[in-house]
């Protein structure tokens, strides 16, 4: 029986689909496991770079990637990195996330002991290229507006984009993205204020 007559048989269709699906899954599984270590390493390097990015230079002399504590926040463990100088706690760094225009926006922030932000960076997002991606520092210096802000400064109701009568700029054509980032940072500061005891407790490893 040649291929042409075989192709029109009823049994050929599900068999073909099954084989294609199997091959596709196998290819994906192989590629996924082959790339997983490299992706993990690249993301760890990104994390180290961005952690060093949000901390003012010279503030810490310890390896804050190792000095961590896991704090429970709404049922999820948040890893808090602690930056020390001469053993004295200077700042804590942690990630917060908020839903943006299309998917989750991951934000890394550094907070000093008085609850002021030292720096904010967007680590990962899937916002619209050219509009919402201005939350990245390399596209726009908007995220620097958070530096030095705390829960009392500006006042809590001013922790919003200008469209919502707050103090932070929104972008032309993208309001939801900056709104989500502002909310994430505000939530992060509130998290620090509420859990300061747990976050600063212990000397770490």
């Amino acid at each position, binding site marked *: 029986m040649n291929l042409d007559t075989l192709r029109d048989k009823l049994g050929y269709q599900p068999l073909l689909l099954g084989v*294609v699906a199997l091959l596709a899954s196998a290819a994906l599984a192989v590629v996924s496991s082959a*790339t997983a270590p490299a992706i993990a390493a*690249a993301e760890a390097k*990104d994390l180290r770079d961005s952690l060093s990015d949000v901390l003012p230079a010279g503030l810490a002399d310890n390896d804050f990637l190792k000095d961590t504590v896991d704090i429970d926040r709404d049922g999820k463990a948040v890893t808090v990195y602690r930056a020390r100088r001469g053993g004295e706690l200077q700042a804590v760094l942690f990630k917060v996330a908020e839903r943006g225009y299309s998917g989750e926006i991951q934000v890394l922030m550094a907070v000093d002991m008085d609850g002021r932000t030292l720096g904010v960076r967007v680590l990962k997002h899937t916002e619209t290229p*050219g509009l919402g991606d201005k939350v990245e520092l390399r596209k726009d210096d908007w995220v620097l507006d958070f530096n030095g802000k705390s829960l009392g400064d500006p006042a809590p109701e001013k922790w919003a984009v200008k469209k919502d009568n707050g103090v932070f700029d929104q972008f032309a054509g993208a309001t939801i993205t900056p709104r989500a980032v502002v909310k994430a940072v505000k939530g992060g500061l509130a998290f620090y204020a509420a859990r300061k005891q747990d976050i600063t407790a212990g000397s770490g490893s």
Partner: protein
Amino acid sequence: MSDNNYGTIVKDGLWEQNVVFAQMLALCPTMAVTTSGTNGLGMGLASTAVLVVSNILVSIIRKTVSDQVRIPVFVVLIATLVTIVDLAMNAWVHELYKVLGLFIALIVVNCAILGRAEAYAVKNGVLASAADGLAMGIGFTGALTVIGLVREFLGSGTLFAQASQMLGPAFAFLEVQIPDYGGALLMILPPGGFAVLGFMLAGKRIIDQKLAARGEAAAAPATA
């Protein structure tokens, strides 16, 4: 179909059957990413790579796949391909991925890729299909870049902003900034995309009519 004339393939890809300007395919990614020339170029290049590989694979398996299930087979194939490209770029060219990463997943929804699989690769040989993918991809890249440049120029007063981030510092010379121009926001927003595309389609039609008229004029004395 044995239309393996490479001249025709290139001409179709770049102009006659241009993905955006003639086939009116892939308008969703077109509108979404053409807010700047750099974005358009990045999306175009990534799509071209996927288009060439998918055309080759579809052409290889075209005799095995039956008509009844070809669409799901091609969809699975393209989705797998895009995911592999996404993972591989994330792992091995991480810096580039951080710039282009946003566009990669969008390629799955690019109907031009399935369109070429259906319209060309399933009926033609491997080499011709690869050439068709390349020509269509370059035509698509050109269209996206031109629309992106026009929107960027009118909307934010720059050309190829941030090109050096994507292509490397050597391409920083491409970046142009018009001083003292606030920009017309409308052009960056979706309506601007449709407006620019509309004007370009009209422009292409006028050029095509002029070309056709000239062709007739040139042919007339010969027949007379």
